[in-house]
């Protein structure tokens, strides 16, 4: 008798298309969810909805032009992406850039990381239903965007780095405004903790959700704050310092829990570290030229060059194969979002739909970075 009752109540898996247009996929990511009631059995990401074949386009562009394609990928880490290509080309040319350039690149890179994390924090709150955080994140991000606007003229898809140095010198106001921002944001960052980190509902929603062990993080190639929250020491700035990172003191934020809250806390702590890095450098920008002289047509010597940097999302690599021409023979980007997304199915299995949203937020996906 009992058996028949059980059979009648047996449930059946069903599918839901989450995306390509969905509020919490933050772009045109399509997830096919197999659900048992509200419990997720399988998540299958389908990507390619905004594939623009950037890598193929690179094969026909000059090295100076390639730089401008990279900020269309991870638009929140645009300066860091540009820096990666510039560093790769400089490595190929064996070009030593002036110290001033290195320091400015580091400051700009950390400001980019801060603005990316601020936006992530806002969106994270919004995904969990606290819409106010979104506005708070944007309020603070606006100041960095203003600094960038003054420096390079754009507020999104910014370009400042070029192979050999910078497009132009920093604006006279740059140092003052950056310092103003640091004093302002040091007061505002504890507000973030008040609003989300210490909220009971928020902690309930994130603690112990979406666990990713260190071994899994390594085998999925998960990098950035996501990987470091699982205890995987993968900060490129620390292990393979570029620009001025070997001159500054900063901690690599490592946590061992590997859940959503650890990933959240990792990014919050990284914001403090970024602030401290900028503080150390902002008064010590050396004098000198803002770019090293390069030829109008850059031709890399024959060979293969790989340069990686730490973007706000993780390890971003540029792999250039040159045949000695003015454009690369083949260029491959190693984008952090793509690898991080691959761990989603592993993390979300057995969770509820609401947890999936939290997990996706803490992965901090930028879809153009995944699709390229």
């Amino acid at each position, binding site marked *: 008798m009992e058996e028949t009752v059980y059979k009648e109540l047996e449930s059946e898996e*069903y599918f*839901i298309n989450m995306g390509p247009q*969905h*509020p*919490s996929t933050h772009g045109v990511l399509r997830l096919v969810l197999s659900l048992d009631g*509200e419990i997720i059995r399988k998540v299958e990401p389908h990507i390619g909805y905004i594939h623009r074949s950037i890598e193929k386009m690179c094969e026909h562009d000059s090295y100076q032009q390639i730089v401008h394609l990279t900020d269309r990928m991870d638009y929140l880490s645009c300066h860091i992406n540009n820096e990666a290509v510039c560093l790769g080309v400089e490595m190929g040319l064996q070009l030593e850039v002036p110290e001033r350039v290195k320091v400015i690149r580091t400051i700009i890179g950390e400001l980019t990381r801060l603005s990316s994390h601020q936006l992530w924090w806002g969106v994270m*709150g*919004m*995904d*969990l*239903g*606290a*819409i*106010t955080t979104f*506005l*708070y994140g944007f*309020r603070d991000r606006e100041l960095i965007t203003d600094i960038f606007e003054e420096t390079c003229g754009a507020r999104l898809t910014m370009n400042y780095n070029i192979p050999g140095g910078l497009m132009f010198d920093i604006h006279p106001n740059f140092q003052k405004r950056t310092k103003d921002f640091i004093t302002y944001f040091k007061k505002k960052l504890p507000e973030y903790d008040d*609003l*989300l980190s210490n*909220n009971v*509902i*928020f902690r*309930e*929603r994130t603690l112990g959700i979406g666990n990713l062990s260190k071994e899994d993080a390594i085998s999925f190639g998960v990098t950035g704050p996501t990987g470091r929250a699982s205890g995987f020491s993968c900060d490129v700035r620390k292990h393979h310092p570029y620009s001025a990172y070997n001159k500054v003191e900063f901690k690599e934020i490592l946590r061992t829990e590997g859940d959503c809250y650890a990933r959240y806390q990792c990014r919050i702590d990284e914001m403090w570290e970024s602030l401290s890095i900028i503080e150390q450098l902002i008064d010590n920008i050396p004098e000198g030229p803002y770019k090293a002289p390069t030829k109008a047509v850059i031709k890399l010597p024959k060979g293969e060059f790989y340069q990686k940097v730490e973007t706000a999302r993780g390890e971003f690599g540029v792999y250039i194969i040159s045949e000695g021409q003015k454009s690369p023979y083949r260029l491959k980007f190693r984008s952090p979002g793509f690898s991080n997304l691959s761990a989603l199915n592993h993390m979300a299995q057995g969770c*509820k*739909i*609401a*947890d999936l*949203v939290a997990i996706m937020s803490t992965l901090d996906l930028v879809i153009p970075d995944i699709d390229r």
Partner: protein
Amino acid sequence: MKWLYDFSYLTHAIHKGLSERFEPGTVVILEMVMVGVAFMLLFAVLGLVLVYAERKVSAVIQQRLGPMRVGKWGTAQTLADVVKLLLKEPLINKDADRFLFNLAPFVIMIAAFMAIAALPFAKGLHAIDFDIGILYIAAVSSLGVIGILLAGWSSNNKYSLIGAMRSGAQIISYELSVALSLLTIVVLTGSLQLSVIVESQADGWWIFKGHIPAMIAFLIFLIASTAETNRGPFDLAEAESELTAGFHTEYSGLKFAFFFLAEFANMFIVAGIGATVFLGGWMPFHIGTWEGFNAVMDFIPPIVWFFGKVGFMIFLMMWFRWTFPRLRIDQLLTLEWKYLLPINLMNIVLMAFLSLMGWHF
């Protein structure tokens, strides 16, 4: 101005005027029509005012201005939105159950109408004064969930269905807490009739008179009623970041406007019940023997007191919505069944004890 403090003068005058001109049967029908029209107008005004208030409150919380362009301070923004919704095409998707799909918004609105009829707005301004008022409101306000379930089922959309199922589980659970927290006060008043409950608070509101159990009951009522109206942090039924728009994903135009209006109407109703039972309804705020102070408070008309208290409750709910993250469905049910319900039951026993010993004021 006498009628402003006691609406029974006004209602009696209207009744007398009508009785002189018409048959008794016609008078009843005419009065019913008048009350119905009055409630419809109230709903329309409530919708306009509360939507505007919600937008401005959220704007203040989020450090922005909110609507500013349409009319002075954006006051005509809601009107413009209503016009937009009226002009929109009512889309029905191909595989929807058309009859139920069209019925659902009306079920929700009817439930709201039925509940609001039992609220005492001011002295003598009370459509139906049931002797089982609280029971009636608790019963009727939970009818709205049928509309949500119908909407979710008939839309033939999986997001809608998940939203409706969540909503069903949520409202049925939190219904208990709402009713039990109201019962805590009924233990003190000894009556379910709302007018009697209001009158019993002439010398002090129950939240102050009932000691700690009344405050606990008020807190539970606040949490549970926010959950019952499907508002954040309990807005799982429409959780826009998970289910796009939940049960009303497929609705557009006027039918969507009905769901939207019903949300605000329900918020008004639960705030009204809370104000009536815990905060003294239309009774002014009095402090013991401070004659002067009490006289000043008495000078403010009861209807202002009622809407002021309701406004305060609604502001609290808006504050919740715009600051807290959303709960997950299992956490939501855990909160109700493992925390609120046991605390509530204990609280009733405590209150009964207090009442028995006569320890309340």
